[in-house]
């Protein structure tokens, strides 16, 4: 009887066709709205589970900013059947690994264990979703701990402060202007009932996507999923979300800082890059590879090989749906080297905007982008994330296949156009940090 019921609850197990990229991808939805994707790998000996929440920092009301970030520290607290910290201990005994990503647009929790422990991870996650016991005492304690962590992060290095400043300037006027935990210090005074209200988003099955990979028997797994997740009360039916891509900036911003006891000089140059839902995203991704990726290292070549400036280069690209910040950070020991480095960088940027890339450069970058994408699809964590994220953005998985085709079809003119649009002076934020 129970089995029949389980079969009824699962609505239409369907094989999703992503030929050549992901073999045997199945999906179904529970009656309460929880969406499940299964990627069986019979030759493997692991099982992985991604719980992807269609909720993130952008859902935080005023006054409790940083609450989503705090949530990742609360998931190990007491539940109906677990004491605080048990979750972590159980995972460590399986030799498994855990990872979490908290973003403005989504939050995700990933676990990988031996295949024999699939039951354990499903149960652990269902405990979190069903019965996480967050009372005032725990919340107050965790808010204080969280605050001290944030103070440590914010009071960090000059590089961090500089990066945060540039990031905020690039994304000014978008949903992402403030850093994820910029206002989290105020969380200490937040009303716990507001936090608990927000955390209901995390238990809403209509806002959850499960992606399970590895070795398992599909029928047994379906029964386990039913056992652990069908009792979650039905939440909101997810409506297709509409995202609005932001346009590039129209005015350059300059700032200079002088810092005492700094053993080097530093410049952080930021650009507003397109939304992840934008068609231009694949072209700007190409530009990032071309300029910064250490396997190609165009910028490293220009600064350190051609001009011998002994510059250290770092970069960062955010992962937001509607607008992104791409920052390049260059540091040198001498100030004159930094000025030369900025000159060289500007020439490189002007060159890409003015001249179509050579076919060999185009081919080299496209090969790396393709390889990285295929490697990601071979790794359970990245693949699970790509499946959930693609479904979140487009409500179908066709994009997984078409993304590879889009990489293959990139032309030099696409890149030149994207460079003109996103690397131009008006779309830049420049912060110089000089040693006193």
């Amino acid at each position: 009887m129970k089995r029949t019921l389980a079969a009824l609850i699962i609505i239409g197990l369907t094989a999703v066709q992503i030929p050549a990229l992901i073999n045997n991808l199945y999906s179904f939805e529970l009656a309460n709205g929880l969406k499940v994707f299964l990627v069986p790998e019979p030759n493997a000996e692991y099982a992985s589970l991604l719980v992807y929440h269609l909720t993130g920092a952008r859902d935080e009301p005023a006054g409790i900013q940083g609450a989503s970030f705090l949530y990742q520290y609360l998931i190990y607290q007491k539940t109906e059947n677990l004491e605080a910290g048990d979750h972590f201990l159980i995972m460590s005994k399986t030799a498994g690994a855990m990872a979490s990503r908290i973003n403005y647009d989504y939050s995700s929790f990933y676990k990988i264990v031996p295949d024999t422990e699939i039951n354990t991870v499903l149960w652990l996650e269902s405990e979190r979703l069903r019965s996480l016991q967050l009372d005032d005492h725990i919340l107050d304690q965790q808010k204080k701990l969280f605050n001290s962590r944030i103070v440590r992060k914010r009071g960090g290095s000059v590089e961090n402060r500089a990066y945060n400043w540039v990031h905020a300037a690039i994304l000014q006027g978008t949903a992402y202007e403030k850093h994820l935990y910029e206002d989290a210090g105020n969380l200490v005074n937040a009303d716990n009932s507001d936090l608990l209200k927000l955390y209901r988003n995390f238990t809403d099955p209509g806002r959850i996507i499960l992606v399970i990979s590895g070795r398992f028997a599909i029928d047994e797994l379906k029964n386990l999923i039913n056992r652990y997740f069908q009792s979650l009360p039905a939440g909101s039916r997810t409506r297709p979300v509409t995202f609005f891509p932001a346009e590039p900036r129209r005015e350059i911003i300059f700032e200079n800082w002088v810092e005492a006891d700094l053993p080097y000089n530093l410049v952080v140059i930021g650009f507003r890059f397109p939304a992840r839902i934008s068609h231009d995203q694949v072209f700007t991704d190409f530009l990032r590879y071309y300029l910064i990726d250490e396997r190609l290292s165009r910028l490293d070549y220009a600064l350190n090989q051609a001009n011998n400036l002994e510059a250290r280069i770092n970069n960062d690209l955010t992962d937001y749906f509607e607008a992104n910040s791409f920052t390049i950070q260059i540091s040198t020991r001498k100030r004159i080297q930094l000025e030369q480095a900025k000159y060289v960088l500007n020439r490189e940027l002007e060159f890409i905007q003015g001249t179509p890339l050579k076919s060999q450069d185009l081919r080299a970058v496209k090969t790396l982008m393709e390889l990285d994408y295929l490697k990601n699809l071979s790794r359970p964590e990245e693949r699970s994330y790509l499946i959930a994220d693609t479904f979140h953005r487009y409500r179908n998985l066709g994009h997984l296949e078409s993304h590879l085709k889009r990489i293959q079809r990139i032309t030099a003119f696409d890149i030149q156009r994207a460079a003109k649009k996103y690397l131009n002076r008006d779309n830049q934020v420049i912060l110089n940090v000089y040693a006193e």
Partner: protein
Amino acid sequence: MPNNKKTNKTIFGAFIAALLTMQAIFLVGNQVHSFKTQNGITLRVIQDQQMSFIHAQVLILFDFSDLPSSHFTPSIPEMTVFHLFAKEIDEPSSPLLRNLRRLGGDYQLEMKPDFLRISLNFPNDRLPNFGAFLKELYNYNHFFLKKFNNSLENYWSIFFRQENWKSILAERIGYSFLFPDQPLGWCFTPYTELRQLNLFHLRSFYRNSFQPQRSKVIIKSNVNPHVTLGLLERSLHGSGDSESSAITTPTLSPQTPRPDQHRKIVFFAGEDSEPPLFTWLEPLPDVNHPDHLAHLTIHQAIFAFPGGRIYQQRFNRFTARAYQFTSEVIHHRGVSVIKHQTMINYPDIEPLISLIDQEKRRLLAQPLDRREYLEAVNYFLNKAKVSTADFEQEVNNEVFQFIAGFNQPFNKWLPTMVRKLSPEKTNNVVAAILSSGKDNLQTDLGGTIVIIGNRDPLIRQSFSFTVEWIRQD
């Protein structure tokens, strides 16, 4: 009152039964084809129909037989590899790097004292380019004086630009102190001594080491193994000598250094503002030794987070601050080395060392109990299963076999070793280690500790132990 002994026996019996099942499971996997090319390369092709690109690894075991016995010798293998592969000094452009670029440029080098591992990923249609790369690897003829001088000039500045330079440097410094008179310890040269090298040293080392017979190539993808062999044979035609003698392995000590050797604590004083990197290195018997797994079990029981003994003392400052060690076993022929690393605050350096020593000594008074033993062994077995998620894992196992001179596949070795082990055997190993170093028990427990941090706070800390200093300049 429950019969604990009986319960434990039942658990242990169930555990052994589970192991036997696991061994059967370990045999599942992709098909592996073994070949020897005409010029002597050992080739493995792992046929994986799910893979949409090629993952390959090339291993070169170094030959130290012709190296001069001199204080600058350590830099010869490192500078040879740097000369061959550093993009920053590739002027005039070498065909070796050109071939790597043609493959797509997605490669990584791992340099250890006794071998070089090149890991590559490339599209399936570039397999012929891979053959061309191998040919160039064994026939490199691009040793130029200008490039060599550039290598010497820029080596350290390029080294410090690597993201994980601290970890690499800590390991090298540690090896140079752990194995001071053996090739395994020839991996760290102070800046000033690089100047005593000449191009001839590099060329000579290259000729001896970069031989097909000293190499293993492993390819994993959805490729036809015989077509792959044919393509590589065609590319490699005429390179190398099929009649060359078999590998003469590096002259590593077959004996594991004993823990009663005096421990060294080394500070590398730099300019970095991050918290210091704490690295604990200790030699173990190699994988062919019956006690290898017992040693790993002991380390697991002490260092594993959060169940290890160093985290069990209530309110100790390491639990509170959650200094989580990452551990790695590095295999060589004749010896393995276990490496534990964590970032740490300056004031905690001395207490951490004392705590680890204290917990190691306590093993005599309070041997591993069955729970600790089972948790450690289960961890190894589970870890092996979780690692099947990595597409590189099967290739890594082949590499491990070749490096360690090991005569059975890793996936068979682990369950076999586990079946031969018991808590009693593990505790006998503990007793043997600690009693052999009895005289030093109050002072040190062997191994080498390397701390890479900023010179100012390091100097300001007072330590009760003797420290060796290396300065960045």
